[in-house]
């Protein structure tokens, strides 16, 4: 009995040696990839140009202390490019901290589906990494070295995450959400467009994709509307023009819901958008005006903007809001339901009811 026990103990002790020996690699022998850019190969060759942004470890954490190393490789497949890149560096790549996958605009406009073959299969790719489209290409995004960066990649994490800046023009998209929308019947993928801007990035537009390529780019205003409708983004504004003066309301509370109704054989999408907030910018004297009239003005102008956006999506035959999925969710579960939706979406009517509530005019009248 005793011998057995000692044997077991010895085996357990040996296990530590085994795990350390063949599997584990120390942190100073790893290169942490913080962002990856995927572009089509140059000059029309088949394959990809992969750019990796590697974090260079630094003992200091202070503004401007983040050092990066950017490496690029062309190959016929992503996996091959990564393997080839390994032969150009001294440490093992670790994708476990890769937070951004930038897809070149050219690739997105041509066909993005092949890159998912690598992204979905790879075990160390985070499902919660962000995906974006790089303008004009992904490599130029990765080469940006923001001056204020405290550690490598910090700027990107802060921009996309909820901890740093919160812009209503930036709609972060997680990898799993992108894959889900790519596979789903009834909702299409969206990706933010990111471009290099001197010492930083500018992310103000949203690209709308169908199941294989980039179809439309939204303007910053449309991006904000998308964010308000789909994500109920309360860190946003609504605007209206009266006599040439732009009035802006800072949103305090926002609620949207929509349903697909059948009216005399015609399908209508009904969307309710309720917004309340206070004026952020308006000419002096709005306090004295009839708020009901102002609200009506806002209601009408916002509704027509939303309608224009919906029409644009309809014409491009994409559905980034998930109307189709809602249709499936509210109709009997058969194959026919999905076919019906594909037939009726091009002729879908929109009925948008906006209700803006002015809560105050800020500090002045």
């Amino acid at each position, binding site marked *: 009995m005793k011998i057995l026990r000692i044997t077991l103990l010895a085996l*357990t002790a040996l296990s530590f040696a085994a795990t350390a020996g063949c599997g584990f690699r120390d942190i100073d022998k790893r290169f942490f990839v913080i962002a990856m850019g995927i572009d089509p190969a140059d000059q029309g060759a088949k394959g990809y140009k992969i750019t990796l942004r590697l974090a260079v470890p630094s003992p200091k954490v202070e503004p401007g202390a983040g050092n990066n190393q950017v490496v690029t490789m062309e190959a016929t497949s992503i996996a091959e490019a990564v393997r080839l890149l390994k032969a150009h560096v001294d440490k093992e790549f670790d994708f476990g901290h890769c937070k951004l996958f930038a897809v070149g605009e050219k690739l997105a406009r041509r066909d993005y589906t092949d890159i998912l073959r690598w992204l979905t299969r790879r*075990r160390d790719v*985070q499902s919660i990494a962000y995906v974006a489209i790089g303008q004009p290409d992904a490599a130029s995004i990765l080469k940006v070295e923001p001056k204020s960066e405290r550690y490598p990649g910090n700027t990107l994490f802060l921009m996309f995450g909820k901890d740093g800046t919160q812009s209503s023009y930036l709609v972060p998209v997680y990898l799993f959400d992108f894959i*889900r929308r*790519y596979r789903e019947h009834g909702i299409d993928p969206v990706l933010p467009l990111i471009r290099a801007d001197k010492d930083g990035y500018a992310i103000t537009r949203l690209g709308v994709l169908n199941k294989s390529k980039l179809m439309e780019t939204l303007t910053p205003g449309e991006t904000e509307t998308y964010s308000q409708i789909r994500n109920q983004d309360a860190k946003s504004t609504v605007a209206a023009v009266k006599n040439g003066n732009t009035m802006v309301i800072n949103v305090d509370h926002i609620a949207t819901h929509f349903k697909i109704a059948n009216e005399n054989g015609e399908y209508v999408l009904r969307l309710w958008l309720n917004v309340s907030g206070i004026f952020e910018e308006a000419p002096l004297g709005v306090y004295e005006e009839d708020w009901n009239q102002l609200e009506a003005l806002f209601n009408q102008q916002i509704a027509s903007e939303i309608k224009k956006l919906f029409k644009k999506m309809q014409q491009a035959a994409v559905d980034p809001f*998930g109307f189709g999925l809602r249709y*499936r969710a509210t109709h009997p579960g058969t194959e026919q339901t999905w076919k019906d939706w594909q037939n009726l979406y091009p002729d879908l009517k929109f009925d948008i009811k906006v209700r803006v509530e002015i809560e105050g005019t800020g500090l002045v009248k």
Partner: protein
Amino acid sequence: MSRYFFYNVILVSLLNLMLFVPYLLIQYRYKGAIMSMLCAAIVGTALALLFMHVMKTFPGKGLPEILRLFMPKPLTIPILIVCAVMWLTASSITMYAFSVLINRFFNPDTSSLVVLVFMCLVCMYAATRSTLTVIFVLEVGLIVCVPIIVFLLFKAFNSPMLDWDAIRTVSHYWNRGPQVKPFAASLFVFTGYMNFFMFNRLNSPNFRLRFRWGTPIFCSLILLTSFFIPIGFHGTEGAADYLYIWSVTSDTLIMSYGFIERVIFVFLLMYLMLSLIFAMIGWHMGMEMIKSCLPEKKEAIDPARTPRSNWVIVGLFAVLTVAYAYWFNEKENLKITSHWIVLRACVEIVSVLFVFVLSLFGSGKRKKLVSHENTSHNAASPDGA
């Protein structure tokens, strides 16, 4: 003590993820998964109630003792061997699946076989302990893991990324007729009570199971969660693509301020613990069943020394597990599991009905039972021991 009963129920229902239950259900999401789940809930609850009657009729008796009351020993041996194999395979499949997961997510450079060998060593030690120790380990393990798992499930339900439209879309397919495979898979969630085939030895004669209505409610909730949450996160189509669907689903959750941002690592650690506990119990049950087929009869539930036969039997289990992992790859494992889960459901239904019928005749055996009760000193409850 009724809480030990519920520990088993909770453990087995939570562990369905490791036996590809959500995977199988999601493959049938348009073809009758929901109806199968409903049928499994009814059948599972009914079987549990029948078995509770058995427990009441034969207090302090494990399956071998119950069978022994009605038939000669040679007849009981095949029944016990079949049951032991069922528990052994459940544990082995879980361990194999988990060693692959560790290889995928934690340590890609170590072979999953090496991981499995070490997991087997741990489980060998744990499973050879006495029944009483095993059930205490179960309690400690669950108290550590379950709050965190419940927190993660709560986070999943609360996540803004959860797409309720996808869940509603799939729930519109409720009217498809039930199918065998998803039914058998869902039935697994309700089988926690079956561990009392052996643990019933621990129950005192005045054992009363309270809150038994909680079992079907809890198990149904877990079943719905493990089916619908992945669909909500990966869509009606995307969810069917993933093999280790719950590991990928846990990766979609974020804890920005939780020390570790990626929930998947916390989740996998918790399930590593649960899987080891599950395997420990499975092997222990299998071991006890095989031991009761041996000529010498050891009945003490908490012996001072671990009998050598324990080591031999569990060692054999470990060798079989490693051999299984060596011979079959992931694809074959999944295929075997999906067949095994149907076989397991059949064995469950037949064996519970069988012991229930025995318990109906049990009153006739009451005299024998009482006299047996007086001579043995082992039918003590865990808290009274």
